[in-house]
């Protein structure tokens, strides 16, 4: 099933939860909507499911305008945040709720919970509830499956395992999937395409790699976890950042630039133009994450190899690797 959302706005009083949202999802595509809490991503799912009437705009499923169709006739599946399982029914009863003739046994083995049919839902662990919620959403064979924070409350190890299972399952079933998450790792692992939302608007659409390599705005860059973002003035192919000068392929003038932590090169021995003092050094397994204080500039984050990492209090020379600099578009909406 293909999905087309055009010009959708949702207003609660004077607050705009969604503002003029445009989104296309092709058949069999897996799209993840990524954004901080309050960015409107759950509202978008509710609009597509028919649980929230938009103030403006249209929702089209397989070419049919369903904007006025109530939720029980849309034929889409929705897996709720925190699962919303029916506690008055057992596992099998939950799965049969939307389809009395569902093949409970094969759905349960599909989600890796064979023989769980007669169990009471209150006895299930978080991961098991998540699987039952997925089986329940799949039981009516929806052509569009939507997931709201599918792995939200689970612990990290379980999330990393389940996200791989989900991706495999989607490929196998060939269902069109629209998932919502605030976790970029989850979004990147699940989806063919990522939609980043901010303040009720779409900030960027692209493959996970596109979004990671070329964030569309300072907001997107910061949301992805990058902190080394600042305005630099560019002259004759060189950008003057607060942390030093570096060659960039950009027109003269002020530009927001992102310096990836891996592109911050620190050396203890050879002196350079720009020096700073290591304020924090956090051991993170395969690398050491360092925060450097440079006079008159924001703290600079650097990722250093474990063998050559400086220690706290050391004075280091700072160079920026031109290959790891991203010039962000000006006049971003954020």
């Amino acid at each position, binding site marked *: 099933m293909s999905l087309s959302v055009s010009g959708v706005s949702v207003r609660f009083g004077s607050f705009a939860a969604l503002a003029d949202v445009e989104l296309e999802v092709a058949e069999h595509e897996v799209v993840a909507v990524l954004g901080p809490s309050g960015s409107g991503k759950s509202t978008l799912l509710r609009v597509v499911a*028919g649980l929230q009437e938009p103030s403006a705009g249209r929702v089209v499923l397989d070419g049919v305008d369903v904007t006025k169709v109530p*939720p*029980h006739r849309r034929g889409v*599946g929705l897996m709720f945040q*925190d699962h919303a399982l*029916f*506690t008055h029914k057992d596992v099998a009863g939950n799965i049969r709720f939307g389809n009395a003739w569902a093949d409970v046994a094969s759905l349960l083995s599909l989600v890796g919970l064979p023989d769980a049919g007669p169990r009471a839902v209150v006895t299930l662990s978080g991961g098991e509830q998540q699987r039952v919620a997925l089986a*329940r959403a799949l039981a009516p064979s929806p052509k569009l499956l939507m997931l709201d924070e599918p792995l939200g409350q689970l612990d990290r190890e379980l999330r990393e395992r389940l996200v791989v299972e989900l991706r495999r399952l989607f490929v196998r079933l060939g269902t069109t999937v629209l998932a919502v998450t605030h976790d970029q790792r989850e979004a990147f692992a699940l989806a063919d395409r990522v939609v980043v939302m901010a303040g009720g608007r779409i900030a960027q659409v692209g493959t996970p790699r596109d979004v990671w390599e070329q964030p569309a705005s300072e907001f997107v860059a910061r949301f992805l976890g990058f902190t080394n973002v600042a305005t630099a003035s560019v002259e004759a192919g060189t950008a003057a950042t607060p942390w030093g000068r570096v060659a960039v392929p950009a027109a003269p003038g002020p530009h927001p630039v992102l310096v990836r932590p891996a592109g911050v090169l620190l050396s203890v021995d050879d002196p350079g133009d720009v020096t700073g003092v290591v304020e924090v050094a956090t051991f993170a397994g395969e690398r050491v994450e360092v925060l450097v204080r440079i006079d008159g500039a924001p703290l600079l984050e650097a990722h250093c190899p474990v063998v050559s990492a400086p220690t706290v209090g050391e004075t280091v020379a700072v160079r920026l690797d031109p290959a790891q600099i991203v010039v962000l578009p000006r006049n971003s909406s954020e």
Partner: protein
Amino acid sequence: MDPDGAPLRTRLLALVPLAFLGVFFVYPVGTLVAIGLGFGEPIPGVPGGSLGDVGGVLWFTVWQAVASTVLTLVVALPGAAVLARFRLPFSGLVRALVTVPFVLPTVVVGAAFLALIGPDGLLGVELDRTVWAILAAHVFFNYAVVVRIVGSVWAQLDRRSVEAARVLGASRPRAFLRVTLPALRPAIAAASSVVFLFTFTSFGIVQILGGPSYATLEVEIYRRTVYLLDLSGAAVLSMVQFAAVAVLLAVDAALTGRQRAARLVPASPRSPRGFGEWAFVGVNLVVLVGLLLTPLAVLVERSFATSDGYGLTYWRALTSADASSVLPAPALETVGTSLRYAVTATLLALVVGICAAVVLTRPGRLRGAFGLLLMLPLGTSAVTVGFGFLVALDEPPLDLRDSALLVPFAQALVAVPFVVRAVLPVLRAIDNRLREAAAVLGTPPGRVWWRVDLPLVWRSLAAAAGFAFAISLGEFGATVFIARADNPTIPVAIAQLLGRPGEVNSGQAMALATILMVLCAASLIALDRLRPTGAGGEL
């Protein structure tokens, strides 16, 4: 969910309780108020009565209510502590026993205390027609209110707060005064206002135990209407009572609105430790059994104790038509009458109460006023309601005097607030996403309630039904006005039998009261077992 349809459906649902309350509460009580103020037609054959000693009646009503409330707290708070804090053998049974007196009709409680401390009473001291009998019966009746309201909070208080105070250097009594008591204060206040309200509007107990020299407002209204035919005086007294209760409810609402809720954790009772704790538990259990069980046991005993030793004389008299000149038919027929009325009243109360509770869970601007209107019958005296029925519903456009539904309507009116209070918290606790999940899974709006809400609330509904049934069975204050003379209910028959001299009459009253006690207790206990543990719902 369905933005266009829902408000219309909600409005239609709201019509049911609104129409019910309008016709059977606002209209009768309003008519009464009009008569009291001198509007409306004068009632023929009734002289303009003097108001007499209204001040004296009001004073007695207030001070006996205060005394009853304080006494109940003193006796019941330690009992609440024992049942809340300690894991005891049979504590489930004890908890159920504690609740029985609360659902007993006041007429039965009055009869039980007559059997205990009345003329020829078991204790040998004749205390009836004294205020002590009234106070003792009030404590007996309201013990469960304190245990249920305070005990449920006490059981769930976070023990670590007390432990923290102890570690910080507070002694046990000091930790109780500084930590436990403040945390319990809202619950104690809530229980006190309920007990005060019940004893302020006390009717059956005062009527049976007080004798001619004691009267609450409620009793005085009844006496003026039935014995003195002073309807306008009774109407004015009804208004005084209505105003007093309205003030009480307003004060209660203002107080509860400002209170902070204590942090609650799942209850974790433990076994008593050491001599002190065991002694505390033992003394309280003795009080509990002595206070609660003795009157009920004596009631049963009296129904068998004839002047020639124990026998079934009084029970046999229930079935014979000529043994008693007090009742129009064999006394046992009142059982059938009461059961029929109570079943009808329960169904009515459930329909009205469920509609009202569903409306109250939906958003809406007038919800607050609607909720208050629903609770008003709880605060209005049953006698006022019955009297209102009598004067308002006996002539066109609404002449229900001969309708078999008149009594059930009055009883349902008394039971509706209890149904709403039992069901509403459970309905409110249902996560709305469950309804949304049902919709997305293809359930049409009209069926969501049946597939999601009803399965989740039916246990609470069953418990509410049991409660409504027991209340309807025992309802006296309103029923005594409107029950047809040739077809009295059990409580009305008991009061009539007790009001006449003669051993056979009082013996039959005891036997009927035993039957009523068993019916009420059985319906409550059977349906209370269905209530899910830990679920909300008041009372």
